[in-house]
């Protein structure tokens, strides 16, 4: 069994389609909606946990991707945007639990199991590559 959290972005062309309902019906997963903000004709976001067999969860995310739903996978309460990250390492000294570390090749590693979502790393990033899920959804 697998359980995966994700932030789903629905473009304005997607918000009027029953995507979550199709997801549950066709892929045999349960969806726990933790937060949602979707209004007709506007872009929407939803924070969900999708649970099912490993295969079902994988297929569920493949389906969302195919439908054009934007996907962000936060680890606990932290989003690490790898496109914005330059691997400088300015954040690592703020991470007291060593969830953020610089590896042998000087690239940033993030161990979500160690993260306690304290948020100390967020203001230390010069490139806005670290963000809390709460801030992202608001």
């Amino acid at each position: 069994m697998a359980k995966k959290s994700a932030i789903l972005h629905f473009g304005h062309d997607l918000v009027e389609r029953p995507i979550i309902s199709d997801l549950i019906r066709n892929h045999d997963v349960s969806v726990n909606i933790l937060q949602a903000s979707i209004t007709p004709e506007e872009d929407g976001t939803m924070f969900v946990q999708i649970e099912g067999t490993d295969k079902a969860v994988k297929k569920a995310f493949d389906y969302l991707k195919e439908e054009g739903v934007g996907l962000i996978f936060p680890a606990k309460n932290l989003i690490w945007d790898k496109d914005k990250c330059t691997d400088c390492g300015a954040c690592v000294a703020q991470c007291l639990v060593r969830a953020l570390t610089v590896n042998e090749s000087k690239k940033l590693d993030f161990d979500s199991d160690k993260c306690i979502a304290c948020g100390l790393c967020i203001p230390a990033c010069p490139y806005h590559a670290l963000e809390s899920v709460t801030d992202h959804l608001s």
Partner: protein
Amino acid sequence: MSKTYEEINDKIKKGKAVVVTAEEVIGIVRQKGAKKAAREIDVVTTGTFAPMCSSGALINTGHTKPKMNFKQAWLNRVPAYCGIAAVDLYIGATSIPEDDPANKVFPGRFVYGGGHVIEDLIAGKEIIFEAQSYGTQCYPRKELLAKIRMADLNSATLLNPRNAYQNYNVAVNARAKHPIYTYMGILRPNMGNINYCSAGELSPLLNDPNYRTIGIGTRIFFGGGTGYVFYPGTQHDPDTKRNEKGVPMGGAGTLALVGDMKEMDSRFVRGVSMTGYGVSLAVGIGVPIPVLDEDVIISCAVCDADILAPVWDYSDDYPEFKGKPLAYVSYAELKSGKVKLQGKEIETASLSSMPMAREIAGKLKKWIADGKFLITKPSAPLPGMGSGVKFHPFVERAVKKRKIIL
């Protein structure tokens, strides 16, 4: 044995030049010796990617109809300097919107400023442009509000008065009882962390300590395109104390750089937000070093263990412009992740990205090996040691109070 710039360029044009990065050259010189390495290698490429203020964009928008002489202008609400000519303006990397709360609620986040405008322009994004003027008979228009983008600008030049610092300070918070927010990042109390900002052995000027091949006119990798060194950078300070290997033990030489923004890639030009400090810009810079002889390659083989940087207390000594470095530490120690200082093991953090610096040195290496990038002989050297060029402090002379005559 020595090679000339022309001989090296002939090899580059034929696709036969041997090019290695400043990291790769260290092992080669160790293994083969400087003499053999100098014979075999033609060019060494360097790279650096880190926040560096003293950067900005010189933009000429082209003329509006009717014409206008910009006196005040804003790009995405970030003010630009207009005291140049009718439609010339300069947007500095550290400029922030007039209504930004700055540090009124401390520490300010400085979400968007000049550096971000520059990144957005290069990324091809639309920018809201506002301008005002008093109007003249030849330039009658007084107001403008329009969307602009890079493709429509008459010209856009990245014109950075000071980049690519040859070595730099290392920062700690030794005396404040609370975290301090600096341009060197967030420094936790009791020397909770130690921050540095140099690519060390891969950094351009640390591979050419006496400015032998890097000079005015040197063609470089600049923000993903090509650029040039146009002058010594502001605060160029060649006489900074050096170690026995001739490597400066602190901020020394700097470069003034110029390049066409239209050629650049926003991957290598990024707006920077330093919490509690302000905005800035990180630019990718790569400088090729032609291996003219053995001495050049010996300098290029400098390694992190040989480069020492001064540790300054940013909670007191640095801002008050007093005291002396607490210690000197090597980049080998800094890059290991931990430094021992005053009996305490302190975690290090870098503001300079090694993976990006490697990517830049690697890209420049490929450009040269593929015959797409030729090296240049400087048209004039940068001021060197003993030239008399110094970075000296502000000379603050008091103004006499005058009686106000009514």
